């Protein structure tokens, strides 16, 4: 009997795990299933550029089926409940005439598993910050496709005033993104002839403008040279969209004309519904083996974990390779190779600083990043990666 590997979430992590495992394991060793809610794979880093029309030529989404090894079964459906005691998942009933896509037309299904990989990601939770739900439509974000498109429309109608960029909750996906957005915004406003009419105000929760000290030291002078105002120790407590004021836990108030928020994030609903997560729905995950703590045969990766690494495609990418090695060994009853089957906190990402420059952050649990001076080289590398992604990353080729 082949072992049943079920992967929930067809994001970057889940897709890489499926593809590496499918290449290594024979069909009589393992049956690999990916369950994805939409069947569409999103390239979320592309959303950063959308508000500035900077995503021409960038593909932001592709069919998950086209990215998966042909031996991987894709089920398009929503997982309603995970039952680790019985090693099975319950799917929500299919909506269309054909039932649940990928399951031969059945309307309801319970899927058993021997190994489970949870790449269930993060979801935006505006309900976690006072004022966001009531003020819907009167603040902006670039953390969803719809949000980024709406922000693009708002920016294209903008004629000057105060733009505030703020963090609505911790943790959030891609910690450098708000800083990148701020730099790209400054650049774009200059090209539109609106820079002199606009005050840009960047608000950040901790005592410097970015979490990594060396990066903060590098970018703070850039903010100052470009006349971008910043306030640190600003943890957003409330957004008042009537008065157009944002308020912090630390007792400060900042007025705005256009507000760009990083909405609060939470783990997936199914994690909360199954009682597997912490109070925010993040999965308690072993920092090296990536096993979900106190569970048997369950792994977690990417945004879904509670690990102290950035919620990013990059972390998910490196984690996926570790999980794939552990699964392959487990299916064959072998010990995992300690050189490839332990996650060391590896992350590699870029930080756009505007004006066609970027820097690069490479780090792991042991080694802090040593970012190079922002340059055209890293900006071009990032642009190249944005395009090459579809051909090398989901397949697990890099």
């Amino acid at each position, binding site marked *: 009997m082949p072992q049943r590997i079920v992967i929930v979430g067809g994001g970057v992590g889940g897709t890489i795990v499926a593809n590496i495992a499918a290449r290594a394991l024979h069909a009589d060793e393992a049956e690999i299933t990916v369950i994805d809610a939409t069947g569409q794979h999103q390239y979320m880093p592309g959303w950063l550029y959308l508000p500035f029309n900077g995503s021409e030529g960038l593909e932001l989404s592709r069919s998950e089926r086209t990215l998966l090894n042909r031996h991987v079964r894709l089920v398009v459906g929503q997982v309603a409940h995970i039952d680790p005691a019985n090693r099975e998942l319950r799917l929500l009933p299919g909506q269309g005439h054909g039932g649940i896509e990928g399951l031969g037309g059945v309307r309801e299904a319970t899927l058993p598993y021997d190994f489970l990989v949870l790449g269930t990601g993060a979801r935006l939770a505006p309900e976690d910050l006072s004022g966001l739900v009531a003020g819907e439509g009167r603040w902006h974000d670039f953390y969803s496709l719809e949000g980024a498109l709406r922000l693009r429309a708002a920016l294209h109608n903008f004629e000057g005033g105060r733009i505030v960029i703020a963090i609505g909750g911790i943790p959030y996906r891609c910690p450098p993104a708000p800083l990148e957005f701020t730099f790209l915004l400054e650049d774009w406003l200059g090209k539109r002839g609106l820079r002199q009419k606009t005050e840009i105000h960047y608000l950040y929760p901790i005592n410097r403008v970015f979490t990594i000290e060396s990066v903060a030291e590098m970018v703070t002078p850039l903010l100052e040279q470009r006349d971008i105002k910043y306030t640190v120790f600003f943890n957003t407590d409330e957004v008042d969209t009537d008065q157009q004021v944002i308020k912090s836990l630390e007792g400060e108030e900042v007025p705005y004309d256009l507000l760009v928020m990083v909405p609060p994030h939470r783990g997936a609903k199914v994690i909360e519904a199954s009682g597997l997560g912490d109070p925010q729905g993040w999965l308690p995950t072993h920092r090296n083996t990536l096993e979900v703590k106190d569970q048997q045969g369950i792994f977690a990766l990417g945004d879904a974990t509670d690990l*102290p690494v950035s919620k990013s495609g990059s972390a998910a990418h490196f984690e996926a390779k570790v999980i794939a090695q552990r699964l392959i060994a487990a299916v064959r009853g072998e010990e995992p190779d300690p050189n490839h089957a332990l996650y060391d906190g590896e992350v590699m990402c870029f930080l756009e600083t505007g004006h066609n420059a970027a820097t690069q952050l490479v780090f792991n649990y042991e080694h802090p990043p040593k970012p190079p001076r922002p340059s055209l080289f890293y900006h071009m590398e990032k642009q190249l990666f944005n395009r090459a992604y579809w051909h090398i990353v989901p397949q697990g080729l890099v």
Partner: protein
Amino acid sequence: MLQLADITIDKEIDARGSFCPGPLMELIRGIKVLPVGGVLAVLSGDPGSAKDIPAWIQKAGHEFVGAFPEQGYTRFVARKTH
């Protein structure tokens, strides 16, 4: 002097090796979901935490219980007061 053994810790976050988002972000995240009166510990190997963590706790008006050095890292303990 206050001893670690005298404190009841409700939640502990291991932020060792965290550069991004970093130990202070982990502490803020932990404080936010803790009930008022709860005690949070964050493990950090980052020397900068000795300055960053007490500074934020003071700014946010919570109580800094103490910093307890261990082998290669420090356990920072805070109580949520409001």
